[in-house]
């Protein structure tokens, strides 16, 4: 159990990082990584939603899809669940914690279309994790997302100050940076604890 948890953590953070190794969730990764603060906000929001989505999707999968022999419908069903969760979370935060709602701002609805969330729940299903491990995998996946986007944002803040050739200014140099960061994470690829 302990070894499995550690293994999941190492995989989600480093060797199987959702963004830099599996290339899920590239849209928010490129879109909200201009500043470290906003990147961190996005990371926290994604972690929160991933944990909730993992729990809800585990319930839907094991209590609904498996008994009805509808496992092939999992992707559609999970998208439905995730979209609904994000909406409910948004309304809840607006009412209960307005300060956090303001801090997250537009990032919350953006998570609906973040495929890293869908990726986490699909991994949970294919690995056959139980409920608690699924939720933990959700949290770990979110932390991996946060790590990647904060690292990338801090590199981008510095690259913005430098003067790349005209044709590389803006997004081209950001994409190259992302590629180099992903190459760096390839160094973890052999790492596994099981």
């Amino acid at each position, binding site marked *: 159990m302990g070894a499995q948890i550690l293994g999941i953590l190492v995989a989600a953070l480093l060797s199987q990082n959702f963004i830099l190794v599996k290339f899920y969730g590239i849209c928010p990764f490129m879109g909200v990584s201009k500043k470290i603060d906003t990147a961190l906000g996005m990371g926290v929001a994604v972690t929160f939603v991933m944990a909730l989505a993992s729990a809800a999707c585990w319930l*839907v999968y094991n209590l609904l899809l498996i008994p*009805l*022999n*509808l496992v092939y419908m999992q992707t559609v069903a999970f998208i*439905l669940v995730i979209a609904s969760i994000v909406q409910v979370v948004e*309304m809840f935060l607006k009412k209960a914690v307005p300060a956090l709602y303001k801090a997250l701002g537009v990032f919350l609805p953006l998570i609906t279309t973040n495929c890293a969330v869908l990726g986490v729940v699909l991994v949970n299903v294919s690995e056959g994790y139980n409920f608690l491990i699924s939720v933990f995998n959700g949290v770990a996946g979110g932390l991996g997302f946060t790590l990647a986007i904060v690292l990338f944002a801090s590199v981008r803040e510095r690259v913005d100050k430098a003067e790349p050739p005209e044709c590389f200014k803006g997004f081209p140099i950001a994409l190259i940076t992302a590629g180099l960061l992903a190459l760096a994470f390839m160094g973890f690829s052999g790492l596994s604890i099981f």
Partner: protein
Amino acid sequence: MFEIFIAVAMLGGLALAFGLVLAAASKVFYVETDPRLDALNECLPGANCGGCGYPGCGAYAEAVLNGEAPIGKCASGGNECAQAMSAIMGVKAEAVARKVALVKCSGQKTYDETGLQVGGAKVKGIYEGFKDCLAASRVGGKGPLSCQYGCLGYGSCTKVCKYDAIHVVDGVAKVDVEKCVGCGACASACPRSLITFVEYGTDVIIACNSNAKGAVTARSCTVGCIGCGLCKKICPQEAITVEKGLAKIDYSKCVSCGLCATVCPKHLIADAKIRNDKDPVPAPNKV
């Protein structure tokens, strides 16, 4: 065939269940908003420049609604915006004068045909760091200029201006007063605190910020205020004072007669009317 119906029923049921949850949640978590908030947001320009001191137009509208902020802080919206907002809030607003940014430096560099510098702020060395004013002002030597107060000309103000109203011309930032809305973003970005605000249409301005002793300023710039006090003596309204080697105009007394601009030996008091009649270029001194 039957499996299709199960699948449709399952997905439809799931969607219906989530739909009901969402409907219930929107009732349970309903947050009442004041209709005046939307109306206030409509009046504001929505540029989120931050000139009012709040994080954005939305935050300012909220502060006005809660009575925490006075109406008329929006420099960008100006008088029109203040009147519209006061109509919504049911109070009378005072007329707001439009303010524009002013860069207190006239050290535009001029060169003769051989490339030798003949006018403006003297360059003491070559700076090769980040092309950014803050970076240049932090390194030893404080950037390329002899003058410790003058415009570095790397355009930190240009980068933060959302209205495309400030540009570096001949090494000194220059404000386009027609585009400037007085939001103050450039003033906070300038590491030398060179940018101040004057009423739109002010034509007599002292464009220098040097607090150095007269002799030091004279050595480092051909258009620096040396604190000679000629402008102070000639001013019929006693609107000019000289402090720390720098002349300053009190605009509550100034009547824009332009006499000070005629006597300034460094030609740094800008006055559009007078400059056009006399030589527009500052007298070239050897630097």
